Each structure stands twice: as structure tokens, then as C-alpha cells.
């Protein structure tokens, strides 16, 4: 079980939320090339270690927020609304 701290609802079982994956900066759709856009859509670092990622509080306040999670231990630190 992974306990995820929602800034609004407090600690929740990860099953109540949705993991939206690692944060990547979104290129400007009006200027991005197709290649840049598709890299943004599909390519991931998928690191073994600390990753900054977005969660959606699906079963609670329905807000998005960012945390850092260690993908090897599932330890979590830091948390801010996004």
C-alpha cells in the first residue's frame, strides 16, 4: 500500500487517487514541432529513484498536486498543489 499525502485531504491510500505520471514540461502547442510534441506525449524517463510526479485526488477533493516519490522504495517527500 502506498500512502499519498493530498495537500487538501491528508494521507490517503493511493487507490483513492490517480497517478498521472512524471512531470514533464509541455511545449507550446502553437510553436512545437511534431517531433517535440510527440516526445512530450510519449517519451518518459521512468527512473529508478526519485521522480517528481502529479497525482489527481480522484476520490476526494479532485485537485491535482505534485509530490516526489522514490520509485524503488515508494517513499514520498514534498508536496504542493499544482
Amino acid at each position, binding site marked *: 500500500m502506498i500512502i499519498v499525502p493530498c495537500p487538501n485531504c491528508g494521507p490517503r491510500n493511493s*487507490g483513492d487517487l490517480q497517478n498521472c505520471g512524471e512531470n514533464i514540461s509541455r511545449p507550446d502547442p502553437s510553436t512545437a514541432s511534431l517531433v517535440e510534441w510527440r516526445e512530450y*506525449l*510519449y517519451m518518459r524517463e521512468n527512473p529508478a529513484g526519485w521522480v517528481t510526479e502529479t497525482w489527481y485526488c480522484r476520490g476526494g477533493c479532485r485537485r491535482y498536486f505534485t509530490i516526489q516519490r522514490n520509485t524503488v*522504495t*515508494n517513499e514520498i517527500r514534498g508536496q504542493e498543489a499544482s
Partner: protein
Amino acid sequence: MGKRPPKYSAAALVKHGLTRGDWPRMWRRPEMRDSYDVVIIGAGLHGLATAYYLAENHGITNVAVIDKGYVGGGGSGRNTAIVRSNYLTPEGVAFYDRSLSLYKTMANDLNLNIMFSERGHLTLAHTDSALRTMHWRAEVNKLQGIDSSVIDPQEVKEQAPSLDVSENTRYPILGALHHPPGGIVRHDAVVWGYARGADHHGTHIIQETEVLDINVEGGSGPGGKGAGGKVTGVRTTRGDISAPIVVNCTAGWASLISNMAGVPLPITTHPLQAAVTEPCKVFLPTVVVSGSLHVYVSQTDRGELVFGASVDPVGTYRVNGTLEFTEELAGHVLELMPGISKMRLLRQWSGLCDMTPDYSPVMGFTPVEGYLLDVGWGTYGFKAGPVAGETLAETIATGRTADLISSFGIERFTHGDLVGEKGAAAVGH
């Protein structure tokens, strides 16, 4: 080399039984050289099959298969061993069907009983949309000569009498996709057979050796890696190896290896859990899958029920079992087969799966010369092992992408030309 590995025969069994002599080792523990023609990272089914076909079909034997752990310690030793070819896209169907035909002759080809039980495969539909997808798959399958058809609940009951096909359940069974050529195979035997075959041709299987970096020169990224570069070898915990060709067969760890070459992948790593019950009298004659209920089940020849589910929703490299999995599994299995409520689970385990956005693999050449991919196997890489090895070996030996994998290249993500296999691969096994 050339000659076949020693036979496992009834005569050999009697002889070893009487003399109590040691069986010959299936593969050696060779000293690692400092250069090879081909270095394959990952001694799972895919790495070993590739090595075997490189030697067997193309005479390329100056090859090392390197693993940080032991042979078959990744997904290849943890899967639920289901094989089938009733996929959704024409590319997928042709590819998986070739794998099934390699499985059919494998016991002979590798001279090892891989216990292929061609017992048929049922994918249940509990909703109209699922039933529609089953019809779609059946038509695609038939066009390519695959034995696959949609059957109604009564016919489902004939195939698997223990299933509850009444209308009073929470998720009534509306029909199923029936695929008689599907079945299960002894997964460890397949891995060992390829390892023994490759070793016999002179290929080096190097265990307990971790690849720490891939050496690339002339690339456009940091450190000369990435697009436009050329592979020169790998750095391992036992020293450097120079090699003009390096192949990534590391499934759940694929991104970590590919990032070493500066080739990012469209992959996230998720654990997939499975579980097995105590053995009981054999009552389940076929493989049963329910996509809507996120569960599948088959019974081994020893009588244990083997269960699997969908991948854990949170991507992680941690492979611990969870209570969520067992709880959901039990609930859903009892929905399908209320009769087994007294059976006890013996074990549960978990392995890493390399999930792609379109549920198809990523294979072949990359923007780095000499660096090839055989990844993105998600939850379906066991059935694909033989054909992946065969086509990748052909690609390496000829320098040309084999026809069967031409739509699985990494460039499909830049071209926006995905091979959407979700309707046949999510929880499909």
C-alpha cells in the same frame, strides 16, 4: 560446435537413476571476454531466444548474454505462461501467430519437454462493448487464418462448466472469444531450453554481472550519446566489453538501460502480480480471461489454479505483493467461479512489466547505430519470446528490419503511427 545438446531420453533417465550420476550442466559459467560481436543485455526469454537464433539460424556465436541476476530471474520466471495469437491488429496477429507455431515445434527443436498444453483460451465479455471488441477480433483473426470465434454463454458453460453463466450475477457473461490454439507452456523449461541451446553453440551466458553504462560515440546528446551516435560497447561490474552491437532485452528495466545510450523510451514500469492456490482435482480445462473483472485463471497439470490480474496502477520498480491485489482477485474470481470459495492461496508474487502507450512492443534499430531494442513486452512478452528472438536475430544478422516487426520500430512514436493493441492485450494474456 554444430551438434545437438545431449538428449534427455527415457534411456538417459534409467541410466542416471541407476548410476546416480550427475546430469550434465545445462549451460556453462564462462569467463567473460573483453570483446564480442554482439552483447545482449538481459538473460530472460527474449535475450536467450535472440542468442539462440543468432547461432542456430545465422551462425553468429561470438555473443554474450549478460544478466545482473540469474537466468530467467525477471519476468521470464514469473509469468503465468499463457500463449495465444488472437490479437486485434493484423500486425499483432501475424507476429504472435508465428510465435505460437515456434512453440508447437519447440520441444523437438530444443530437445526439452516444454509441456505445451494446447487447451484453448476464453476471453469473457460482460458488456456490449466488450462483446463488440470480441467480434472485431474474431473477424481480424479469421481473415488471417486464426481459429477464433465468438461463442454464447451456453457454449462457454460447455467449455468451462465451473463458470457461473447465469444472468443473476453482478457482471453476467454475455459471450466469449474462443481461441482453441491458445494454452499454457512450462515457462522455465522454455528459458532453460534456449539457454542450453545457445550455450551449446558457444554463446556466453554471463550471470551476476550488471551493465552499468553503454558506451556511445559521436551522438548529439550529452557525453556523445543519443541520436547520430555509434555504440562501442558496455561497462559492467566485471569490466568493459567492446562490441559493435548491443541489444536491450531488459523488459521492466528497459528504460534504465536505454537512457544509458541516450535513447529515451515510451515506457513506464509497472508491477504485475500473480497468485497460485493449493492443488486440487483438475476441473478447469481451458484458460479463462475476464477483461472487465481484471482477472484470468488457468489450472496447472498439478491442479493448482494460477491467477493473474492487471498491472498495479502506480508505476514502480518495487515488486512486493499487496493486499489490494488479493482482495480484488478473490472477489472477482468468486464472481466467475463461486464453487471455489474454500480454496486457499498458496503464494503470490510480482514481476516488472514495461508498458507502452499502445500495448505493442518496441523492436529493432534505434537512432544510435548498433544499439537495438527488444522491449515494451508489458504483460504479453512470454508468448512473444520465440518470434521476438527469431526476428531480432534476423534483423541483427542481415542489417535489415525483419518484415514481421517492421511496424514495431521506435520511430512509430515520432510518426504518430501507433499499433493499438489495447483491446486484445490489456489483462488479456
